[in-house]
């Protein structure tokens, strides 16, 4: 079944078109990868879907409901969860509290429930010493914390924006496993990644963006061999 459908989505910043007539569909329990060179519009794509920016035109239909005009927090409560490319710990809250925020507001839990829920998620992700300040966490823990906060909102679809960046090979492997487990719980996953090996290993379907347009879509192998994708990446390297 379809969970998310995007129709003709465009987003302009002043004179700059960051997204241009994007159409995409996400099935339930799917793991989708989004690739593309820097400035291709990947993060904007997530920002528009999660409601950080209103779209310039187009429609977003989530779970059979038009959410184009809804504010970000409502979308979150409906079940769109996300992490951020640049890490954003809430530095004045400790590790557990950071995760509780998701549960408190995304799911509307009370403090006690939220605490229990957050602890469960931490256990699942392998986070411990939950009273630590965020400044004491290492990069893996922060990434996990961001994921945990998104998970705590009880999403139906989860957008992970470059979650592997800065992780070692072993750590990456661990996170990939975790993502699979999350999917197995019935959550659609959309990963934005630079690391191609991750995309290859993890995703079932890939969307390639360049200049705000979808240039290719399909299995990783097809997309990776698509000449437009290759030239987009090569163009970037020049």
């Amino acid at each position, binding site marked *: 079944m379809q969970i998310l459908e995007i129709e003709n989505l465009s987003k302009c910043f002043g004179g700059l078109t960051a997204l241009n007539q994007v159409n995409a569909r996400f099935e339930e329990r799917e793991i989708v990868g989004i690739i593309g060179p820097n400035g291709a519009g990947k993060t904007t794509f997530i920002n528009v879907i999660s*409601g950080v920016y209103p779209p310039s035109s187009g429609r977003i239909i989530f779970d059979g409901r038009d959410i184009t005009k809804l504010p970000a927090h409502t979308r*979150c409560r409906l079940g769109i969860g996300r992490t*951020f490319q640049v890490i*954003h*710990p*809430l530095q004045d809250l400790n590790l557990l509290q950071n995760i509780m925020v998701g549960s408190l*507001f995304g799911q509307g839990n009370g403090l006690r429930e939220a605490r229990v829920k957050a602890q469960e998620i931490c256990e699942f992700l392998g986070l411990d010493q939950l009273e630590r300040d965020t400044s004491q966490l290492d990069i893996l823990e922060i990434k996990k914390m961001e994921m945990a*906060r998104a998970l705590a909102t009880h999403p139906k679809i989860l957008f992970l924006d470059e979650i592997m960046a800065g992780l070692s090979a072993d750590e990456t492997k661990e996170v990939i496993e975790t993502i699979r487990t999350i999917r197995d719980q019935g959550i659609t996953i959309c990963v934005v990644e630079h690391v191609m090996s991750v995309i290859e290993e993890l995703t079932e379907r890939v969307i390639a963006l360049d200049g705000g347009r979808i240039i290719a879509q399909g299995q990783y192998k097809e997309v990776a061999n698509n000449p437009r994708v290759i030239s987009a990446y090569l163009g970037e390297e020049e």
Partner: protein
Amino acid sequence: MYATLALSWDMMFRSGQPGLSVAGFFGLGGYAAALSFLYWGVNPLVSIALGCLFSLLVAFILGLVILRIRGLYFSIATMSLSEIFRVIVMNWHRFTGGPSGKALPSAVFNGDSAKIFWLFLVLTLLTVIVSEIFERSRVHFALTSIRNNEIVAKSSGIDVFKYLVVVFALTSALQGMIGGAYAHSYAFISPEGSFNFNFVLLPVTMALFGGIHSTLGPIVGAVILGVVGEYLKLQLPYGHLLVYGVIIVIVILFLPKGIVGTAKERLKRKWATI
């Protein structure tokens, strides 16, 4: 009194929004309380509550408009609002008494300063309680998240705008309440007295001095600065405000997180070393 203002300012500032409308709502509440007492003979204590409600209402409506603004621009916007209130009150001669203000026939409790003190203590306690409720409920999580990163807050399901409006209205209501009590304790209200910029600068100074984002900090700041101020005045009838300024500068240079903030950090470090 200043403790309450300092605390109420800090409660708003916990969301990261530095409001400068303390004096505005202080004055508004004062006028609402004084005038309702004067014209409709409302019981003074009830009229203080009315002042509180009036500020709540006005802040709520204005909050809907101005809480789209952030940071320093928010400061200016709230300051402008304060000034606009003042000018309106000053020019509305028939109702507010214009620049001369209005005298009330008698102070609350007939000017018994012990009772007035208890009144203020109760109001301060009320503010402390509200602040503590904030600190221990989801509001704390919401405000801290908004302050730290608004986009993360939004994406985690926090209705940022709703929280800001509610907190703005509530803190303004507290300021209005104190304004009402102030008007009644001196049986007098005037634009220059009530919309005085001192009611912004001093509470903010106290909150920052004591330490922000907590209940304890602003209270400690207000108490210490209040006591220091009085002591200095006894010692130096002339230059006491100068020394006061020097103290503020020195504290900021050496205790940048305020007294309570620094103390907390020291304690933490001690704990860590043990």
